[in-house]
């Protein structure tokens, strides 16, 4: 089935390729985009539309599955196959699809409520199974579609319609949660930083297995400026830690800040005014087998967003569920091709007449 050249996306080794050059326009549909003006979802959509041509896949072999939420509208705006399913369950549908169709590139589009509240269980199971699916989690730290209740990523004490006196529950850190759930690929990006977002999308698409991409997304209606610290040109460089595999974790406007490891306790911490050759500066290793390092990275930032790592936290390889399933099936088929009549008759049949 495969055509064209494999450009190095192992996740799509079995997905038919196209030789026809594609552009973002090819991925647009005739449906009017219906997000609020100014919503961060527009930027993400544009980044996805801009990136997909790079995959070089046939459009008909790409499938977008979403749950419910503002973000979940995205499939309608991408000229691929798509399903806008029900709240929290897109991951389950994607699992069945990916398990049966190696020739498809399957994406899940979800929100912080969809993925982490009602859909939390399916997400963690998807990650542990390592089904070949790329999950884009639009985290606006609020329920947009239902008009502004707090979400499992809202900061403690959040005042919303449903919590007029402030929310009471500590939020999830989606990256920590994913790592605790045996995820093989975890990354974070920001809606407005198109370049970094595209690079994370690229890495996620490249990964064979489940990829979780948390995208900080501004909901300008119900949670405006939630990520201002990481977007405002005056502050963003001081609080954003860009993760590049093999590179030291230096950041800050003038690059004098860094993540260092305490030699005694082994703990990671941000530090100011770090010498260029300070040996304590951590060199980023997204491929570490042990997720403890990536987990420690994920703890650098809390819900106040100070010291937020952005980029790929972890990318390791492990057999995917769908692959293993296909192997079992094809081995059985080869060894012992299906003789239906034999199955029905069984070993103990007898004849009458």
């Amino acid at each position: 089935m495969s055509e064209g050249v494999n450009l190095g996306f192992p996740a799509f080794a079995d997905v038919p390729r196209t030789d026809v050059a594609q552009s973002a326009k090819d991925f647009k549909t005739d449906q009017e985009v219906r997000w609020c003006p100014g919503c961060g979802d527009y930027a993400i959509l544009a980044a996805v539309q801009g990136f997909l041509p790079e995959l070089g896949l046939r459009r008909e072999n790409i499938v977008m599955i979403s749950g419910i939420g503002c973000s979940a509208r995205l499939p309608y705006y991408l000229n691929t196959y798509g399903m806008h399913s029900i709240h929290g369950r897109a991951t389950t549908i994607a699992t069945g699809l990916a398990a049966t169709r190696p020739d498809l590139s399957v994406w899940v589009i979800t929100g912080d409520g969809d993925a982490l509240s009602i859909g939390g269980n399916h997400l963690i199971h998807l990650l542990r199974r390592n089904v070949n699916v790329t999950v884009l989690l639009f985290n606006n730290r609020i329920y947009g579609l239902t008009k502004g209740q707090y979400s499992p990523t809202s900061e403690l004490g959040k005042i919303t319609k449903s919590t007029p006196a402030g929310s009471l529950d500590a939020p999830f850190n989606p990256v920590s949660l994913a790592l605790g759930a045996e995820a093989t690929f975890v990354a974070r990006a920001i809606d407005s930083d198109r370049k970094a977002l595209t690079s994370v999308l690229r890495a996620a698409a490249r990964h064979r297995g489940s990829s979780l991409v948390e995208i900080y997304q501004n909901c300008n209606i119900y949670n405006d400026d939630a990520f201002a610290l990481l977007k405002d040109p005056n502050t963003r460089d001081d609080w954003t830690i860009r993760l590049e595999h093999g590179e030291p974790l230096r950041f800050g406007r003038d690059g004098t800040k860094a993540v260092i490891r305490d030699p005694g306790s082994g703990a990671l911490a941000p530090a100011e005014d770090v010498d260029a050759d300070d040996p304590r500066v951590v060199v980023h290793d997204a491929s570490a087998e042990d997720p403890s390092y990536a987990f420690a990275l994920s703890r650098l930032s809390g819900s106040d967003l100070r010291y937020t790592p952005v980029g790929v936290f972890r990318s390791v390889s492990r057999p995917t569920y769908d692959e293993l399933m296909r192997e079992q099936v094809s081995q059985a088929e080869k060894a012992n091709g299906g003789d239906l009549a034999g199955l029905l008759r069984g070993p103990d049949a007898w004849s009458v007449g």
Partner: protein
Amino acid sequence: MVKQVEQRDRVVIRFAGDSGDGMQLTGDRFTQETATFGNDLSTLPSFPAEIRAPAGTLPGVSSFQLHFADHDIFTPGDAPDVLVAMNPAALKANINDVPRGATIIVDTHDFTGRALQKVGYASNPLTDDSLSSFQVHAADLTEITTRALESFGLSRKEAARAKNMFALGLVSWMFHRPAQGTIDFLKSKFASRPDIAAANVAAFHAGWNYGETTEAFAVSYEVRPAALPAGTYRNITGNIALSYGLIAAAQRAGLPLFLGAYPITPASDILHELARHKRFGVRTFQAEDEIAGIGAALGASFGGALGVTTTSGPGIALKSETIGLAVTLELPLLICDIQRAGPSTGMPTKPEQSDLMLAMHGRHGEAPVPIVAARSPGDCFHAAVEAVRIALTYRTPVFLLSDGYLANGSEPWAVPGVSELPDLHVDFATEPNHFDGDAASFWPYLRDPDTLARPWAVPGTPGLEHRIGGIEKADGSGNISYDPANHELMVRTRAAKVAGIARSIPALDVDDPADADGRTADVLVVGWGSTFGAITAGVRRVRKRGMRIAQAHLRHLNPLPANTGEMLRSYRRVVVPELNLGQLAGMLRADFLVDAVTYNKVRGQPFRAEELENVFESLICDAAEDAHV
């Protein structure tokens, strides 16, 4: 000693013992021997909810009942002619079902003070005369078995474990069952432990010989093979038949079968069985819960596979929301509900027919789903094939209802030839279907005018890229639409599609043989699902007594066969026996305004033929009286 041989036309035998005593295995083997011999048969296994309830207790008793005959039969029998009781608890738990005069074979080994007390026997029933109206054969079978196996070098405990094979040997002798199958079976089952295999075979022989030689057993019985229609037969349980039905249907459709399921009694065995047949391209996915199970199945269907999910009542409750999605997506999907006694956790190992209303109505909004029900273990195969036919033809989720009684019960099943199975080949959409001037596009909700089914265009098909979802869709294009008139159209179209399935199913067949004077019945009994056997047996009994009664059994519950109302209205009385509080009866009353009489039982047990006989009889008399007024 030459023993007397008596002829019997039918025998009901029940094996009962501790859950650890291997009674299910014993019953299975006896069933297999009986099947091979050519009797018609029907079985009813029954086991406790606990994995291993404490030994020697009443809740720990496991039993297996088998009815076999020289003619066609329909139930596992109302009451055992022979009870094999391996301990005091087994005797106590089953004695009330045993009619006077029946034979009881008891292992006396555990009939000691403490063990008797444990189950509430104040004195030893074997010696206190309380069993005087039965033919009791009491012997220390455990002791005899261990002695017979002394030479095998097993521990006492290991040797004692073979007592079930001793008992099996004994009754196999008693009923002239062929032994070779069991011997082969034991050898292959214990292939890795030849000593155990040999010991079990020896125990079996010892039991056989015990019957042959002991004076206690003066008579053995012969039950001639039944005159079944010509064909190849095998013994099959409902869950296996259902699994095979799914595989066969997928093969006949040329689609991969994908099962998304979460284990639950009594449905788990379908997952287990299908997991063994990857060679037919079957993929089984044990999901994290029922919602994920059906979600994955639906995802597979979207991708062009035959998506199936299997569960029991609590799982259906959880799947409701996704079933609603499937209704509006109009994708094929099979939902198998192996019903058990509810509500809530209820009695997981006991059957009931109480999910019919859930299947009909358990979704928000107007979300009609076709329903097919199986009537006997072997029929689970055909019901599954039919349910798949509807799902594929009409692009709709379909309920397939079975229950714990069918799931584990077994009967001889006429193995169908593969080519006799319906051709379920599917035409996927491959081309644009909507033309606007020169522009061609694909509309996912343009329907087949005949079936009202929408096209199934699977990802990977070039040019047919489309998006579908749970929000109301515009007729034709499938785009999101909040247009009031469109919503009304779509709601009514989905309903019409399901109603229209009636055109593809056979008319309701009423069995109403005229009597010598050419008169037909006043009373019609209508059933559905697993009560078929008991109803048929009950009907036969009253007919044998010279009374007239008509019988109809519904395979399709939604839609009902087109002639259902007409049939119902042509009888003076309609009675609907159900293992619930009257669910089908309510449907028939609402649809046809027929004053159907209900006969309901919710005890986690099937109907007995005798109880239905009585019900039918009194209704026939009532109806006759009416007629004379």
